[in-house]
């Protein structure tokens, strides 16, 4: 996911740069009659229509199914996550591979960010751990191993030291 997002963003930025460079290379000599407003009107119209169609398609593709949907049923494993300055409590700390796991995250003091990283250090998913509320996030681990939990919402002096481990067990 991250690689695709980076590539898409760099492409969009590159398009902006190309448009500016092209216009700046064609600054002069000045035209006697400025046809800008008519050209601009046509270009704007095309861009507006195109961006509305692209936006609608993007919304449908990325919002359906709802990204925060949480599965239910007997096969689902639940993990209670409680954050407090500056430690994580996970119950249980071991989950099976290949089974939907739903994390129920809350906090005993301030806002924290429950971020789960795979053994290579890549962020897989996150949710906020907030006092008085329980946010749910679901994930199905595909590889066994030791996953790190880091805090992703600034929470004070030892924010960077707020870590825990989650073990994903292979199928027995």
């Amino acid at each position, binding site marked *: *996911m*991250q690689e695709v*997002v*980076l590539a*898409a*963003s*760099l492409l*969009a*930025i590159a398009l*902006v*740069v190309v*448009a*500016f460079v092209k*216009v*700046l290379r064609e*600054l*002069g*000599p*000045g*035209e006697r009659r*400025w046809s*800008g*407003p008519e*050209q*601009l*009107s046509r270009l*704007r119209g095309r*861009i*507006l229509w195109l*961006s*509305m169609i692209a*936006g609608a398609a*993007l*919304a449908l593709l*990325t*919002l359906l199914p*709802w*990204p*925060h949907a*949480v599965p239910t049923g007997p096969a689902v494993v639940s993990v209670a996550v409680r954050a407090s*300055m500056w430690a994580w409590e996970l119950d249980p700390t071991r989950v099976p591979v290949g089974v939907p796991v739903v994390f129920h995250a809350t906090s005993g003091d*301030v806002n924290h*960010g429950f*971020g789960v990283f795979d053994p290579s*250090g*890549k962020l897989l*998913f*996150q*949710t*906020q751990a*907030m*006092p*008085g509320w329980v*946010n749910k996030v679901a994930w199905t681990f595909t590889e066994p191993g030791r996953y790190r939990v880091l805090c*992703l919402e*600034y*929470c*004070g*002096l030892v924010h*960077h030291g707020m870590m825990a481990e989650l073990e994903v067990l292979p199928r027995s």
Partner: protein
Amino acid sequence: MTPLAAAVRAAPILEPTRLALVSGGLVFLLMMTLGLLMKATQAGFLPLEPRAFYEVMTAHGIGMVGTAGLTGVAVLWHFLGRYVELDERVFWAFLASFLSGVVLILGAVFVGGFAAAWTFLYPLPAISGGVWAPETAVVYLAGLALVGTGFLLLHLECARALRARWGGLAHALGWPLLFRGAQDPLPPPAVVAAAAVTVFNLLGLVVGAAVIAISILDIVIPAASLDPLLAKNMIYFFGHVFINATIYMAVIAVYEIIPEYTGRPWTTSRIFVAAWSVLLLFVMAVYPHHLLQDTVMPAWTLAVGQILSYGTAVPLVAVTTLGLLSQLHRSGARLDLPAALLVLGVGGWTAGVMPAWIDGIVAVNKVMHNTLWVPGHFHMYLILGQVAFVWAVLLRLARGRDERGLSASDGIVFWLYLLGGAGLALGFLIAGAASVPRRWAVHDPAWIVHDVPGVLFAVMVLAGAAGFFAKAVPGLLARGAAQARG
């Protein structure tokens, strides 16, 4: 007019907007230095302790946001003053309130050790884990309230002046043109933009004032607790609207200055009015994209946050970006340093919006939120956008228009700033894509590879910015002295 007031009026360096821009430029340099300190610490070049790091981080954040606000309203006031009668005493009152707040904020951070980040996310200011006293948090929040009061006063004066000149904010927004197809006289683009910003920033400031007041009450009367989710909504509404307002105020300089170089009028069209009206609504409605990882929020609010993240980019590109490119294309314009910075500002802003709206997609946000991706996009549209606009206006006021275009030394500082800013922002984006968390005082050894180039790029930005400042201030002083003499 008293002799002192006459002397102040005669010296442009002491005109309130120029004073705000010069002091804002100086504070930008100081805040960039704090940013460099943080990057150097993460890269392992400096032994800044976490406590000091988080204090510096809080000062850098609030300093940059506050200074973007200060310089943004200075640009707004300067150009709006061409079309409406503004009471200069209000700007002085704004400056007094702003500076009083700054004193309290600096005291809270560097004397009291307050380090809850500029966003003061409830209830962190009150619950510090024993790092700072609750009274310190009250001082910080009171400082914010004073700064906010200054902005409130200033926007109320803008609203009064716009109503007095155009007969109502709806007319200043160009709504008769939008809904009836004609308006006479037409409000110029600067007035339409100023009216829109005035409306949404006033609403944002009122919500900000409410959450600050409740946060203070919560510390003073612990029984009066606030719902953390409601507080988060209010803080992000205020924060999002405010930081966006700083850019939308500064962009007025583009509408006002660029036509002087191209010889082509930047007129108010129906699409221009429609874009700013849509923006007025979207800027306020889009804030849930800061809460995409709070799954307890109603799903429709998060979906709206995602859709409007994309939607707010469209009017920007349709009106300001395409408008600028159309102004420039085959215009024969010879761009000097201020004009080049205005063009850079629109380009940097537009480019920075791209990774920002992509981060507003719920599924993307799940792996990008609160990584260095976030400072990646906001450093792009602030360093290469809002702050570039401010340097442009400062240099333009100091040096006027240079028919010869960019000199060699102008080119050096311009490219230092552009390449440094682009390198720094892209480095943040790449680190974010590599899952490096934001706001960490200590970085894993594996992440340092992203920090080392960032130090070099931060030095380049700082050198470029110092160059702009050094080029502007002597000009402002000389012009002030000349005008005072004669």
